[in-house]
C-alpha cells in the first residue's frame, strides 16, 4: 500500500508538467487549428528564463581588496553579487527564491515570445495542411533550441530550489501512518500544487470571463462568431500567447527538478504530443487527465516489482498506452466527436 502511494505521488509532478504542456498544445490546436511542434521549445525557453534571471541576479562586482592578499600574493578579489550590494539581505532572499520569482518574470516574457511566434510565423500557416504546420514548427523548434544553446551552452545548468523547501515533506502523517513512513520532496509537492493552480486558472479564465466565453464560442464555431462581428483572430492570437505562458511557467518551475538544456524542448515535445493524442485532440480536460494519467503510469512502470514481470516496461509504457488507445479509441480518451477523427 505504501509503495503504491509513493509511486502515485512520484507520478504527480511529472504528470503536472505533461498536463501543463499538453494543455497549451491543446489550446493552440483547439483555437488556431495548428499542430505546434515548437511547443516543447516554448517549455525550454521558459526554463531558460529562470536560468537567465538567476544569472542576472548573481552578476558580481569585483573589487580588489587593498589590505588582504590572495594565496598567490596578488590583491584579493572580493566578489559580491550586485543584488546583495544594492538590496542587502533582501538581495539574498531574491537569489534564494530566484526560481519562484522567475515565474513572475516569465509571464510577460513568454507572452511576448508566444505573440511574436504566432504573428511572425504561424499566422501564415492556418490554411496550409497539417503536415506543413508540423514541418515548419519542427524547424522552428530546432532553431529555438540552437539559439538557446548559443546563449547558454550545451551543458545542463542546475537551478537550486529555495533553501526553505529543500527537504522532504512527511506525507505519511497526513494519512495516519507512522512518522517518516512516506516522505516526499517539497518541491515536487509544490510543483503539483502549482500545476493544479495554473490549470484551474486557465479553466476559470475560459469558463467565467467574457473573453473566455468568446474564445470557447470560437473554438466550437469560428464562422458564426466572426459573423457576429467579433475579431476572433485577435483573441486566438492572445490565446496562443496564453498557451506559451502556461508552457513557460511550467518550464520555470520544473528547473529545480531537471536542469535545463537546449534539448529539453524536444524531449518533452514527443511525450506531450503523445499526451495530447491520448487525451483527445482539442479536448482540454482530456489533455489534463491524460497528462496526470501518463505521469502516474510512468512512475508505476518504474517499480522494480513491475519491471520484474515486464522487463523494460518503464521505457515504453507511455508509447504503449498511446498505441493501444489510438487503435481502440480513435479520438482519444475525451476527444470531441468529429475533431480529427480519421
Amino acid at each position, binding site marked *: 500500500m505504501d509503495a503504491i502511494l509513493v509511486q502515485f505521488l512520484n507520478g504527480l509532478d511529472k504528470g503536472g508538467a505533461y498536463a501543463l504542456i499538453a494543455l497549451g498544445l491543446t489550446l493552440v490546436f483547439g483555437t488556431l487549428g495548428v499542430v505546434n511542434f515548437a511547443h516543447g521549445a516554448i517549455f525550454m525557453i521558459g526554463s531558460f528564463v529562470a536560468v537567465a534571471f538567476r544569472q542576472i541576479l548573481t552578476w558580481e562586482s569585483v573589487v580588489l581588496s587593498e589590505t588582504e592578499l590572495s594565496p598567490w600574493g596578488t590583491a584579493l578579489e572580493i566578489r559580491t553579487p550586485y543584488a546583495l550590494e544594492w538590496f542587502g539581505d533582501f538581495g539574498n532572499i531574491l537569489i534564494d527564491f530566484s526560481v519562484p520569482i522567475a515565474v513572475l518574470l516569465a509571464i510577460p516574457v513568454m507572452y511576448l515570445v508566444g505573440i511574436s511566434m504566432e504573428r511572425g510565423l504561424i499566422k501564415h500557416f492556418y490554411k496550409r495542411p*497539417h503536415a*506543413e504546420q508540423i514541418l515548419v514548427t519542427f524547424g522552428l523548434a530546432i532553431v529555438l533550441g540552437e539559439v538557446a544553446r548559443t546563449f547558454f551552452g550545451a551543458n545542463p545548468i542546475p537551478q537550486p530550489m529555495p533553501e526553505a523547501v529543500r527537504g522532504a515533506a512527511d506525507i505519511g502523517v497526513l494519512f495516519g501512518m507512522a512518522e517518516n513512513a512516506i516522505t516526499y520532496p517539497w518541491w515536487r509537492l509544490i510543483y503539483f500544487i502549482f500545476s493544479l493552480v495554473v490549470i484551474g486558472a486557465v479553466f476559470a479564465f475560459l469558463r467565467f470571463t467574457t473573453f473566455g466565453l468568446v474564445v470557447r464560442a470560437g473554438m466550437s464555431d469560428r464562422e458564426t462568431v466572426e459573423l457576429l462581428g467579433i475579431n476572433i483572430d485577435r483573441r486566438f492570437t492572445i490565446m496562443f500567447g496564453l498557451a506559451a505562458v502556461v508552457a513557460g511557467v511550467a518550464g520555470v518551475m520544473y528547473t529545480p527538478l531537471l536542469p535545463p538544456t537546449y534539448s529539453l524542448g524536444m524531449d518533452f515535445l514527443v511525450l506531450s504530443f503523445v499526451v495530447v493524442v491520448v487525451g483527445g485532440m482539442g479536448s482540454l480536460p482530456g489533455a489534463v487527465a491524460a497528462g496526470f494519467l501518463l505521469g502516474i503510469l510512468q512512475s508505476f512502470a518504474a517499480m522494480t516489482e513491475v519491471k520484474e514481470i515486464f*522487463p523494460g516496461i518503464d521505457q515504453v509504457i507511455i508509447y504503449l498506452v498511446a498505441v493501444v488507445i489510438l487503435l481502440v479509441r480513435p479520438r482519444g480518451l475525451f476527444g470531441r466527436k468529429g475533431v480529427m477523427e480519421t
Partner: protein
Amino acid sequence: MLALPKKELITFLIFAVVVLTMPIWLTPFGASYPGLLQKFAIYGLLAVGFNILFGLTGYLSFGHAAFLGVGSYAAVWSFKLLSMNAIPAIVFAVILSGLFALVIGYLSLKRSGIYFSILTLAFAQMSYNLAYSVLTPITNGETGLQLTLQDPRVLDLAFSERGAGLPLVELFGVDMAGYGGFYLSAILLIIGFFVAQKITLSPFGLMLKGIKSNQNRMKYTGFNIRPYTLAAFVISGMYAGLAGGLLAVTDPLAGAERMQWTASGELVLMTILGGVGTMFGPVLGAWIMKYLENIFSAFNENVLHNLFSFLPEGVQEVAVRFVALFVGEGWHLTLGLMFVLVVVFLPGGLMEGYRRFVNRFFNGKKPKPRVPDKQTQPAE
C-alpha cells in the same frame, strides 16, 4: 519490364551518371572522400525509399529511423554469425526490416493523418528505448553492436582460418570500407532509384497517388486502400533497412541512436528540403544535408579567421563571431533556418525552386501560383 518511357529513361541515365561520377565532380567541393561519398549514396537511398511512402501516399511517418536501425543490427549480426561478405548482410537487413515494417505498418496504418505520424513515432521510440535497455543482449546497448574476435562467423571459418585482428567487410575480395563501399552503395542507389521510378509509373504508383489526393474518393470507387498503403510502407521500410544495412557494411557498427526520433526527423527534413514527391528531390535534399553536416560542422574559428583574413581586423572579428553562430557546432541552426525558409517560401522544396526558375527565365511563362486546395493535402 525494364523499359522506361523516354523522358524517365533520360532522367535515369543522367542520375546514374551523376551518381557514378560523384568522386570526380565533388572534388572541388572538398567532399570527395569515401566516408562522405558513402553517406551520400546511402542517405540518398533512404530518402528515395521514404519518398515512396510520403511522396506518393502522403502518409508522414515520423518513425522511419527504426527500420534503418533494424537494418544495421541485422547486417552486423550477419557479419558476426555468418560471414563477412556484404551480400548476406544486405539480404538479411532488407528482409528483417521488411518484416518489422509489416508489423508496424499493419498497426499504424489503421489510422491516418497526424495519428499515423504519432503511431509511427511511438513505435520508433519504443524500439529505440528497448534497444537501449532490455534488448541489450541483442543490441549491446549504449556501446553499440560491434564485431569481436570471438564471433562464430560460421561460413567464413568453415573455409579459412581465423586471422589475427578484426576481419574486414568484403564483397568477393573488395574491401567495403573505402571506395568499394561507395560503389556498392551507389549501384544500389541507382537500382533503388530505378525501382522507385518503375513504382511511380506503375498502376500501383498511380493508386498511391490517388490515395494521396483523395482517400475517400478512392474508397468510394471500391478500392480497399489498406493493402496499397501497407505495401508502400513495407517497400519504403525495406529501402530504409537496405540503407541501414549499407551503413553497417561500410562501417560494421550499429548503435541505437540511429533509431532515435531525431534521426527520423532528419530524414523528413531531407525529403522536404529537396522536394517531396519528386524523383530527384529527396536525393538532392539528402546530399545537401549530409554535405552541410560534414563540411559546415568542420568549420572552426581558425578556418573562419583564414576565410575572412582579407577583412580589416575589427570587421574580421565581427564577421567571424557572426558566422561562427551558423557553422561548426551551430550548424543545426543553419539547418533549422534553412528548413523553415524552405517550408515557408518553397513548400515544394528545392525542386520547386528549380522549376520556378526555369519557368521564369527560360519559358517566359509566369510561375503558377501555389493553390492551397484540398487536393494537395496529405491523407487525413
